[in-house]
């Protein structure tokens, strides 16, 4: 099993570097369209990490929702709003110092939190096919939050229609 573990480590390293590179590109590139495409790359990297954690359902839904819907929405917005042919934006604006401060605080907070949480290994067997359990739990134990989220999304949908009509 030694060899498999080494290979898994290597693959994780490559995926992590690619994901971080895409994330940096997203914020550093000047062309908004390129930034949106780099964001797609980041989403793919995150999906790959989910796959390595054996969360297949999450990985596939990540691709379906974040790339198939959210990234496409962002691309649509870029296409419809910017001066199409030359969208050279500056990477920084007046608020960069405050933004940097907020991000630094957030990063430190998360970092300290991750170090403090005792990550225990449950030791029990893991389900190989998690999808049926996810579905059952969503429609029994977590039915109320699930329905509330649906109503929220429906409200957002109707709101979008009303705004678009005016």
């Amino acid at each position: 099993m030694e060899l498999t573990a080494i290979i898994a480590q290597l693959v994780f390293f490559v995926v992590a570097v690619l994901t971080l590179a895409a994330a940096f590109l997203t914020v550093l590139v000047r062309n908004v369209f390129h930034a949106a495409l780099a964001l797609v790359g980041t989403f793919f990297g995150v999906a790959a990490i989910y796959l390595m954690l054996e969360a297949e359902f999450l990985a596939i839904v990540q691709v379906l929702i974040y790339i198939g819907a959210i990234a496409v929405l962002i691309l649509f917005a870029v296409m419809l709003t910017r001066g199409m042919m030359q969208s050279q934006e500056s990477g920084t604006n007046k608020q960069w110092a405050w933004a940097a401060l907020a991000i630094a605080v957030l990063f430190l907070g998360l970092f300290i939190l991750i170090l403090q949480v005792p990550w225990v290994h449950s030791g029990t067997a893991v389900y190989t096919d998690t999808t049926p359990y996810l579905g059952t739990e969503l429609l029994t134990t977590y039915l109320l939050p699930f329905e509330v989220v649906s109503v929220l999304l429906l409200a957002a949908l109707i709101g979008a229609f009303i705004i678009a009509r005016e």
Partner: protein
Amino acid sequence: MDIFSFIFNPFVGLYNLIRDGLTQLLLAAGVPADTTRLIVFFIMGLLVVTVVLILAPVMMMYITLLERKVVARMQDRVGPNRVGPLGLLQPIADMIKFMVKEDIVPEGVDRPVHLLAPIIAVVPVVMSFAIIQFGVGMGAVDLNLGLLFLLAMGSVATISVFMAGFGSHNKFALIGGMRAAAQIISYEIPQILAVAVPVLLAGSISLSQVIQAQSGAFGLGWFFWYIPVGPIAFFVYLLAATAEINRVPFDLPEAESELVAGYHTEYSGMKFGLFYLAEFLNTFLISAIGASIFFGGWQGPFVQQIPALGILYFFGKTILLIIVQLWFRGALPRIRVDQLMNFGWKRLVPITLALILFTAAFLWFYRGVLLFLKGYGG
């Protein structure tokens, strides 16, 4: 392994033969057991990937020939018949032409985006081929989330359309790209909802289990026969999937009379060849999935006895569905943008939602009756 099971399912037999032989060879050479397992896993994986990667373009080439022949027959022409007997070598000549053409990158395009777009168009389609079950036990991988994976890969294709349309810096390409993207995300919804009907009936989202669930008597228990939901769901799936891959009558993104060639206007040579490849691979893919989830894939009479028949059944059903799409192409005019959006959102989406409700209610009722009878009898 006895000789009969080998003859009756030759490809799976060959696979097992190579795998076992390799394992024995490595073990005899003194390689430790776990390393052997790893090496065999990698080699067999490479082998399967190679076979699928060779099969896909060859199939695509002959679908182009099939399309030209079938449409020619519908229009009372002969079709390609000069290169080779019956024009059978025509696709190979076409491919050679694509490959030797000069690679032109037009001035003023967004270079990295322009060059990446055709690759991103092809990769998700080829990845989707991994889950297709070509015969009994003949799938590259048997994902338990197979159909969801397929839909996710289909949604990635939108990105390549955007890249091609926007990166070309050409107004025809841009309008084509916008149309294609709007169309793909609109018709994705009825497609997903229509696929949900066989998933509900089978009680699984894995493609192999959906096929397994359609065995019935003589392997004819196809979901298409579940009247009324089966046929309606199938037609909605076929229409939505045809729209999703931008084929006639939903080919507005590449309407040649208005938009030159739509989002791939600026592409030539092999880069155009890749878009072409993606389009025809998609045609094969949606036909194969339609055949698998509504017509039982490799299920058919006597498949239990002779598994090799499954390959014939699968390809027969798939090619029939491809011909239905070519028939659309030969017979139907292109629809307008407003008709397209109205049809998708006001007709297909409500129909599929009603179908899902009906199927779920029926299954709930049916299982309730079964449980009640069981409890009563026991």
